[in-house]
């Protein structure tokens, strides 16, 4: 892994991009990394585009600015953001963009303003509906970016997430299995184009 990996998340207010960025920070922290996880704050409202960030590194990063040239970009909600937000701005070509969509990467690439790096898609909504009965795209998106970026070692990630689900859902253990299935399926089903 590089010295420092910088990730930018795009989502819509109230739909989990901030939470997903904090979950990734947690997962990386639990495997011994230095982490930063922070959203860009403003007068957010439900449905408006929002941005969140991660820095993940082996030594502490002292920089406290937003991220303008990310290694990876994650589009959490759906591909409708692609027409309203310049999601690939500054994105490094040796990196990748991961989009929550059921479409093939080749179908979305024309919307990405000539981005030449890897374009990855994952149908996080469908996986979540099938495994959890509800549209919670966070967990599958998190798993997809871990798979694509390798920022956390996948086996350690799966173990850590299981422990964290067991802790988080101690009072409703029935959702632990569904979350774990969603996680593993996402790592297998992410399409890299």
């Amino acid at each position, binding site marked *: 892994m590089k010295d420092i990996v910088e990730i930018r998340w795009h989502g819509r207010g109230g739909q989990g991009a901030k939470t997903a960025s904090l979950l990734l920070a947690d997962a990386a922290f639990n495997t011994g990394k230095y*982490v*930063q996880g*922070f959203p860009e*704050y*403003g007068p957010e409202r439900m449905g408006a585009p929002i941005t969140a960030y991660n820095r993940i590194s082996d030594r502490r990063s002292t*920089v406290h600015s937003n991220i303008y040239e990310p290694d990876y970009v994650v589009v959490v909600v759906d591909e409708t953001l692609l027409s309203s937000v310049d999601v690939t701005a500054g994105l490094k070509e040796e990196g990748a963009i991961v989009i929550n969509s059921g479409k093939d990467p080749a179908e979305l690439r024309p919307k990405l303003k000539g981005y030449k790096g890897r374009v990855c898609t994952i149908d996080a909504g469908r996986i979540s509906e099938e495994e959890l009965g509800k549209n919670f795209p966070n967990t599958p998106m998190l798993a997809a970016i871990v798979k694509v970026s390798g920022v956390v070692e996948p086996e350690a990630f799966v173990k850590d997430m299981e422990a964290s689900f067991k802790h988080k859902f101690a009072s409703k253990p029935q959702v632990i299995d569904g979350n774990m299935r969603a996680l593993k399926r996402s790592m297998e089903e992410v399409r890299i184009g």
Partner: protein
Amino acid sequence: MGIRERLSGNEAVAYAMKQINPDVMGAYPITPSTEIPQYFSAYVDNGEVDTEFIAVESEHSAMSTCIGAEAAGCRAISATSSCGLIYMAEMLYVAASDRLPITLAVSCRALSGPININNDHSDAMAVRDAGWIMLFAETNQEAYDNYLQAMRIGEAVGLPIMVCQDGFITSHAIENIELVETDKVKAFVGEYKPQHYLLDPSERIAVGAYATPVYYMESKRLQAQAMLDAKDVIRSVANEFAQMTGREYGLIEKYKMDDAELAILLMGSSAGTAKEAVDQLRGQGKKVGLVKIRSFRPFPTEDIAQALKGVKAFAAMDKDDSFNGHCGPIFAETAAALLAQGVSGPKAISYIYGLGGRDVRVESIQHVFADLEHIAATGDVGETYRYLDVRE
């Protein structure tokens, strides 16, 4: 050895409060410090602390609550931001002049208008002459460490103390942090044993009495002496803290200043971004350095003059504007400090930056160093009152 964790700056301060378990919290919520009383009220509700939590209707009352509690002989705390701090202003002066060592966590935020919830230092700077000790943090770790040291400092000199961090930038960002074990925190902070307090049946006193012209000025002179004395106390508490944690603090932090010819001076989270800029420029062979202010009150006059006396040019960077038509407060105080200490060599400019959450990038800081390089090379200071990263 400490406890490895990851917390936001607000979480870290609330956790420090929990470890200390003070007697009274008076608080009213305001973005971006809301989480501090929010998390702390959960500790109260869960019985993890036995603090009396007093939810009030305004920041003016929050500070009044703290004043009453501290005067009675309790350890009292609060947290606020932005216009909440300004609304407290009247009572901030009362707390300081009554010599009540209240501890106030501030997650700094811009003032209206235009209405804005993001970070700058306008709120803290607006109350800089209220008589409070003021510490500023670069990171969540420093916000936590400063909070653990704050009561020792304030109680030793009998002055209230603000522990400031940058709203959202550190208050809401999750980062690694090393926590101190709670038993060590309790031993370090110790019990509060006020010399004089209202609920002491063996000594009848008045707090907040009227002072005629015959007494008022002596009272103020004593207050000024306490602020002078605070410099040594801040250093000695920091030394003890370093023995416990290995983390060292002073009134300022010097970064790569030993042979620096160009320097910037600032406080808060942008110091971290500036360190990266300094590292990159050092990699190109440029002799640049950073002076970070930790203690704004008392102002580290001697330390700053010592750090800057050998540089060719420096920029004092302010995250607010005094609207005096020529500079921000850090520039003004630094220029006064250098003059008082007989330092007249360096050329200097005032830079206003990062207002209302304007992002401060490594490139922003490099731009300032490029200006300084030009000034040092030509001897021409040009405009001394500048705005950074602004559309004109």
